[in-house]
């Protein structure tokens, strides 16, 4: 059950990342770049969570997960603040 949730989370994040980055490639709209990178990062964070809790329970990757999430959302916030009026 938890495995499915983390994988679903990763899937959703990567899907959003792909759609947004594709949109950025088409129109060069900065907001799409930053939010796309954010969701890519969140997808990675979900992936690390999956690895941490399911695949390698003996290793603690909590700090890395948190760092990945924090950086991702920071990128998003940068995009949101600069590009929305």
């Amino acid at each position: 059950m938890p495995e499915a949730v983390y994988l679903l989370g990763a899937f959703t994040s990567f899907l959003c990342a792909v759609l947004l980055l594709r949109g950025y490639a088409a129109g060069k709209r900065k907001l799409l770049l930053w939010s796309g990178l954010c969701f890519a990062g969140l997808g990675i964070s979900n992936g690390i969570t999956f690895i941490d809790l399911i695949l390698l329970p003996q290793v603690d990757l909590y700090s890395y997960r948190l760092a990945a999430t924090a950086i991702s959302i920071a990128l998003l916030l940068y995009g949101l603040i600069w590009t929305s009026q």
Partner: protein
Amino acid sequence: MAESDQEQRRVDQFILEKIDSVSHLEALLLLWNSRPKQWSPEELARRLYVETKMARGLLADLQRSDLIVGASSSNESYCYESRSEEKDQLIELVDATYRFQVVKISNLIHSKGSSAVRDFARAFRFTKKEQE
């Protein structure tokens, strides 16, 4: 002046879908009324009383939305190219409507929210469709 409700709706829909700001509309209508004259960003900037950089952005945006064409790639110049009667009719309608309803159309444009936000939403369409 828009003759009927349907025409009014076509104009509104066009504005909602394709026009990002009043400046974009003014630039488009300027190119339309002077067609097929070619404009450079500098010329447009002088005419619209904006900075050249902004004019360049307006022209690029209009081209990206497929409303005008880049006339030559060596020097930056753009013009309105008549490619379909339907499109011409629509722009003529928009032009006529805008002359008489400046305030209404300006409000419509401003009510849309930032174009960056709309592009964000649009990115989540799986396929790019022209109309709904």
